[in-house]
């Protein structure tokens, strides 16, 4: 076994002294446990409906490779610039760092990366031509439709993208105010999607000149027309109220709606906040009326907070009962006072009239923002929800019955079907639609693929995994906080992005949240634990008692030298981020 042997005493040195190293001694044979690098799922990735590989994005960002980090996001989400501004960032709620000090500001870092690409005019590589693609119609050019169109193009399909309005973007373009999502940022990102060869057809309204006969000529249809029809207020004289979404659209189109004076904004969702804050910026005096309490509002806490910062009053536990025009102009708004009946577990509490006297206010206008439903032209099976079958987490399909049996499959996503009507869930819908349509057109069974491409047990599906990328090698275990070796992390304050001044916010539509600098982004990114993902911190290498972790510093890779690794497992325990596993040695 040993390489140096002395046959004769004559060959021996005078005393015991070395003539060779111990490298002949393959101590790997001692091993009964085997450490292995094994990337796992970070909770943020599971938390993100678009299944962005956030931990890996942060690693790339931290390495200063902003372009790679941006492209890594785009593998799963073609709208990081949009999401980096308006996403409700469930990733941050899931962030393990939240248990340590505060979650990483994933959202602002996402925007940083997109803005960086925008500023430098970076373009993603064109889609690889793929054989065997089909023709797909996407109806609705909002986030769901754009995402579907993007991924379908990347998967090698021809895409016709129809929208009722003249420009693509849907709610992003016509429903979200400039101060949250500047038009040029949106236009750049939408442009990247269309540049991939998506054919956009504006002013083609379903139920108008876009017919099911035309759509039946495609191999598949993805319907994501959104919800634009205002929900009824259920109050006497509601015809005197104006539609908040229409108001927002008008502003986005560059019009200056004639609203001034005191305006009652009815609702507690993001649209209500958008309407109130837009009105403020137009010089009106909005007041928000909501039937439940402040803490029950479905709007993002951040939006509520910013609206209140800007000085918008909130009146709660008041439900509109009647709108009466006043002879001198303006309206009397009569509101029923409400009280909380019971606290539902997890859900919103029920409210009932309290029996206290009504409240009457005189206002110059009433604007509703209490939700919306499918527009005319959306098939009843979709609008009613009764004719749909589930095809994914954020995807349904019109049941192939009756007239639909003879048509190509029609998948439905976005706000038409999602419980949580958010940009990122719409994007998830679009991605799921692209995956399911691709699988179907290529003769694969989407349902059987689903488990392997879903990130974690609760997460979205990953395009990277669908395409057999590196995420396919991840162990589908979501790393818990108690599985981290947090001693290697330091307390570091979360760095919120800066905002423009209150005065600027009250008087104009400039974007409220400012771009963060590269140095701030790098500092904030440093806070990321990179749960379950090797970021080459080299603890495994450093603590190895057997010098059995080999590094390729140029390639940035490392591997375990099983010739010598004794399987002690120190590397696995000292991995700060649980990116290794210790397994029984195969016999």
């Amino acid at each position: 076994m040993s390489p140096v042997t002395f046959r004769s005493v004559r060959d021996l040195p005078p005393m015991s002294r070395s003539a060779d190293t111990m490298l002949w001694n393959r101590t790997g044979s001692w091993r009964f446990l085997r450490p292995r690098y094994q990337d796992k799922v970070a909770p943020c990735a599971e938390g993100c409906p678009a299944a962005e590989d956030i931990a890996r994005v942060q690693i790339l960002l931290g390495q200063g490779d902003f372009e790679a980090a941006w492209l890594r996001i785009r593998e799963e989400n073609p709208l990081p610039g949009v999401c980096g501004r308006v996403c409700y960032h469930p990733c941050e709620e899931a962030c393990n760092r939240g248990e340590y000090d505060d979650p990483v500001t994933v959202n602002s870092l996402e925007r940083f990366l997109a803005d960086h690409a925008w500023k430098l005019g970076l373009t993603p590589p064109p889609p690889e031509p793929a054989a065997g693609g089909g023709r797909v119609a996407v109806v609705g050019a909002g986030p769901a439709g754009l995402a579907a169109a993007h991924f379908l193009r990347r998967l090698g399909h021809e895409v016709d993208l129809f929208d009722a309005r003249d420009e693509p973007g849907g709610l992003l373009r016509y429903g979200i105010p400039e101060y949250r999502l500047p038009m040029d940022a949106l236009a750049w990102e939408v442009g990247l999607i269309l540049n991939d060869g998506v054919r956009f057809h504006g002013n083609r309204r379903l139920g108008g000149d876009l017919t099911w006969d035309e759509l039946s000529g495609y191999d598949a249809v993805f319907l994501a027309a959104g919800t634009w029809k205002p929900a009824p207020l259920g109050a006497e004289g509601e015809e005197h109220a104006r539609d908040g979404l229409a108001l927002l659209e008008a502003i986005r189109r560059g019009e200056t709606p004639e609203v001034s004076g005191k305006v009652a904004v009815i609702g507690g969702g993001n649209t209500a906040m958008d309407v109130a804050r837009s009105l403020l910026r137009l010089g009106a005096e909005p007041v928000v009326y909501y039937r439940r309490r402040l803490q029950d509002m479905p709007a993002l806490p951040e939006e509520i907070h910013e609206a209140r910062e800007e000085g918008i009053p909130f009146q709660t536990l008041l439900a509109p009962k009647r709108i009466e025009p006043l002879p001198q102009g303006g309206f009397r708004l009569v509101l029923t006072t409400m009280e909380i009946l019971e606290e539902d577990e997890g859900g919103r509490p029920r409210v009932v009239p309290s029996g206290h006297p009504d409240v009457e206010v005189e206002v110059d206008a009433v604007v509703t923002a209490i939700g919306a439903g499918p527009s005319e032209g959306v098939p009843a099976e979709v609008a009613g929800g009764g004719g749909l079958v589930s095809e994914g987490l954020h995807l349904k399909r019109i049941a192939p019955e009756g007239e639909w049996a003879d048509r190509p499959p029609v998948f439905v996503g976005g706000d038409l079907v999602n419980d949580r009507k958010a940009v990122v869930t719409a994007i998830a819908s679009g991605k799921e639609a692209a995956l399911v349509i691709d699988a179907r057109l290529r003769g694969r069974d989407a349902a059987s693929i689903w488990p392997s491409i879903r990130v974690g047990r609760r997460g979205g599906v990953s395009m990277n995994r669908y395409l057999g990328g590196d995420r396919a090698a991840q162990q589908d275990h979501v790393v818990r906080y108690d599985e981290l070796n947090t001693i290697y992390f330091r307390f570091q304050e979360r760095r919120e992005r800066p905002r423009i001044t209150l005065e600027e916010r009250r008087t104009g539509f400039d974007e409220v949240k400012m771009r963060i600098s590269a140095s701030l982004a790098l500092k904030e990114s440093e806070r990321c634990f990179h749960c379950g993902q090797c970021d080459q911190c080299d603890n495994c290498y450093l603590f190895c008692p057997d010098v059995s972790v080999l590094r390729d510093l140029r390639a940035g890779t490392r591997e375990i030298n099983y010739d010598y690794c004794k399987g002690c497992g120190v590397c696995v325990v000292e991995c700060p981020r649980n990116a290794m596993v210790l397994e029984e040695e195969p016999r």
Partner: protein
Amino acid sequence: MRRVLEGSHAVSHAVELARVKVISAYPITPQTHIVERLAELVADGVLDARFIRVESEHSAMAAVIGAASAGARSFTASSSHGLALMHEMLHWAAGARLPIVMAEVNRAMGPGWNIWADQTDSLSQRDTGWMQLYCEDVQEVLDTILIAYKLAERVSLPAMVVLDAFFLSHTYEPVEVPDQDEVDAFLPAWEPTEILDPSDPRAFNQLASPEYYMEFRYKIQQAMEEALRAHDEIDAEFGQRFGRSYGAVRRIPCREGERAPLALVTTGSVTGTARVAQATLREKGTDVDVVKLKLFRPFPHEEVRRVLGPYERVVVLDRNISFGSGGIFAGEIRAALAGLDRRPRVYPFVAGLGGRDITPQTIESIVARALGDEPPADILWEGLKL
């Protein structure tokens, strides 16, 4: 240059002449004068060496092992309990094949405390792999230090230069001190190859398994055998250069060209006493040849047989004892003679333990007993209070 030197200082000056680089020692009577003088020589810049004043003899030996391992000619001196404390490291020095030279002042082991001459301390280190050279007088002490370095470095084994407590260590005698140039010519700088060297990083003295341990021991034995030849060569070269040589075994005949009926084997300073007794006895009509044994390790078996074999009777005078056996030199000599077809009768006398004087009269008494009707025995005591 002829100087009157104390035996201890003869050691010190020999070390100076040998251009020793590292000295480490711990004080013990009667070794102290050696190292005190060396400390002065180093402090005064006369000797360009490092003097490490350690906290024990064990560390003294460990320190010179470290120094020699790093290629420095090294020296220490000790005695008695100090030597015994070094015991472990004596093995280490030899096993590591380091040519360390030590002056060992023969002193009795306690208890009771006894600081006077007795050879049991050095002879107890018989099996450590150290060469042992016993000296008769101060001149021989000085010369033997130089010879010992040359010999040790030739065969890569440590050497112990042994001198009797007080009789030599504290006695002033006129001594011929050689010139530095002459010594340099005789004893050039030590240039070892197997040393600690960051540019050739090797481990030394690591675990030697049963597969190889025995071969290393064989090599030490081989080196000892080589040392017998080397000693004679070096002794002869020393004689040519300096006019003095000593031999491993030296016969001092009563009458030149004749063989007396009895040979008296002595070691150390007792040889000088024996020379006086030899003259007195001759005047009284008793011829005794004195045989001086200088080299104890390696033991000159062949030479002992050649010199002592022809005698009818051999007296061995041991100022030491191996309890349960007897005089240690006597035992070795009897073993060496055992192979002869016709063997002399050996009289193993033990005398002078713990510094008790061995006078010419003591020797005369021993000779009388050996030539008389003393029955054969394994041990014969002389001067014992009966």
